[in-house]
């Protein structure tokens, strides 16, 4: 299958799960901002989890297809239309030559900022340092190291064994609530005054419009105070690290974050909530809440469980006609049933 970009949209890039393994050279990880959405799209299409897709921001592209295959759109609801007819997210649609996919853009009320156009076989661009992700600032990876432009033509990889109509059930989709961002304290929370820690966890921040794929900035009247200044001898910056520079306002480090940096890090937001944050519109109210590293790992295990259930759901036999969650003696079960005859 081939994708022809008739209109690029505001920021459409090729992304997979990121360029891991070269941070020691200073190469950022990049990758999808909402990895949970990308993985689910790939599972629906029976692609490898790490297959590349188009990350679509705010205003969608117009894509014309050539050849046969399938798509699944996940993440934000940017109101996709196939040949002028509304289609849903989280569902596999078959594609034939001449089909045109467009997006009406952010919904009202908004349901996210970034959509993933996953395609059967994945987007096939050269693998650079183990990844197809675009890192625009260093003109590395993706399609010619840049965001897509009108006229670009992208090939997909070898067709996957997809099944049209497959759906990711609502209970297995990522959580897109506006609950506080779960944050693990450290590595430098002791560089912040106790009142500053209190401020961080008690303030309602406003997501700044200058946020991008590198970092989410926040606005507030109340500043966080350091014990002895904001500068440290530079060390590494994991995904979700919350830097507190001299102005006392947090910056949460996102997919295109630099590998190392020299501002105090008060904590690290859980990767599931980084995905959630990446879907907030500028101006959204944001709070942070404290969790332990152990609690964070439990959250990752729950997500892995959801992914496993989706995998089973997609590969399960066809006679299953319904599913629901039930609670028995306080334990949650996912129950499916099917017609015998």
């Amino acid at each position, binding site marked *: 299958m081939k994708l022809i970009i008739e209109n690029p949209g505001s920021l459409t890039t090729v992304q997979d799960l990121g360029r*891991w*393994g070269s*941070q*020691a*050279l*200073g*190469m*950022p990880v990049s990758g999808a901002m909402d990895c949970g959405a990308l993985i689910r799209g790939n599972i629906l299409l029976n692609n490898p989890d790490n297959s590349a897709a188009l990350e679509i921001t705010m205003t969608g592209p117009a894509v014309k297809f050539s050849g046969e295959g399938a798509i699944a759109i996940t993440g934000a609801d940017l109101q996709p239309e196939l040949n002028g007819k509304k289609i849903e997210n989280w569902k596999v649609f078959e594609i034939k030559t001449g089909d045109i996919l467009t997006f009406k853009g952010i919904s009202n009320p908004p349901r996210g900022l970034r959509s993933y156009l996953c395609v059967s076989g994945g987007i096939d661009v050269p693998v*650079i340092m183990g990844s197809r992700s675009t890192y625009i*600032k*260093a*003109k*590395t990876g993706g399609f010619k190291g840049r965001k897509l432009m009108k006229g670009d033509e992208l090939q997909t990889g070898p067709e996957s064994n997809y099944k049209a109509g497959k759906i990711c059930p609502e209970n297995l989709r990522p959580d897109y609530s506006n609950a506080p961002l779960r944050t*693990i*304290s*450290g*590595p430098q929370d002791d560089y912040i005054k106790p009142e500053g820690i209190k401020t961080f966890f008690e303030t309602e921040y406003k997501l700044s419009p*200058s946020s991008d794929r*590198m970092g989410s900035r926040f606005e507030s009247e109340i500043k966080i105070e350091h014990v002895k*200044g*904001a*500068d*440290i*001898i*530079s*060390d*590494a910056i*994991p*995904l*979700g*690290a919350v830097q507190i*520079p*001299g*102005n006392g306002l947090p910056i949460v480090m996102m997919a295109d974050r*630099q*590998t*190392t*940096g*020299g*501002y105090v*890090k008060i904590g*690290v*937001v*859980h*990767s599931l909530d980084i995905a959630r944050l990446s879907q907030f519109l500028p101006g959204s109210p944001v709070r942070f809440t404290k969790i332990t*590293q*152990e609690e*964070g*790992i439990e*959250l*990752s*295990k729950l997500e*892995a469980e959801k992914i496993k259930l989706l995998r089973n759901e997609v590969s399960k036999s066809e006679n299953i006609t319904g599913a629901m969650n039930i609670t028995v003696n306080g334990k949650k079960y996912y129950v499916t049933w099917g017609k015998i005859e």
Partner: protein
Amino acid sequence: MSEKIEAKILPAGETCMFVDFGEKIDMKINGYVQALKKALSENPFEGLRELVPTYRSLSIYFDPLVIDLNALRSRLYDEVEKLSENTEKAGSIEIHVPVFFGGEFGPDLQDVCEHTKLSEDEVINRYCNSELYCFMNGFTPGFPYLGGMDKSLETPRLKNPREFIPSNSVAIGGAQAGAYSIASPGGWRIIGRVPYDLYDPEREPSVAIQAGMWVCFYPVDMKRYKEIEAGIKSGEYKIEYKQRGAEK
């Protein structure tokens, strides 16, 4: 008998742990970082994702679904215990890097002069005569973090980081020296610019200033700057690598 090595094992999110040897730019501390990195790469644990060495800490990225947190912590404590005083040896390569200082290429040179109470010439002179050692690459592809800058040049970073700094800008950030290898946001004080790309994915080596190299900046005027700029394109100018200690 060797002294006990102090290290803190710190949480950095649900997929990362820092082993921190102390907040100093110090060849010995960096040696521990490199030695721990070596130990873990030679004998990796299941679930190890990536190791990122910095000045003073090693970041260990791991898959929390594969390795148990307690098992990881005790492995790291064990490795720190086993570290000997043998640090990795400093490199023997020296890179000589031309810089046009001040003017529109060095918008913060004046601020550095005011903060350090030194003249422009004196700042340039002390910067170029510092024994700069590249402790790590980080931040963006190819950004060299340089220790060993003349202490009198220390200037704090900007309170509000700039959203755009042109590539190849030479800078001071607190006690560190460095150079923006690609255009990016940043908070360091910009004092000059190098006439060629410090990061060029098409070139071998793609990263000009690498961890383990000694770095000597030297001032050039605009005429020479333009010559080198043209020379790197035509292939006449080659990046100036030398053996440390060889005649200049």
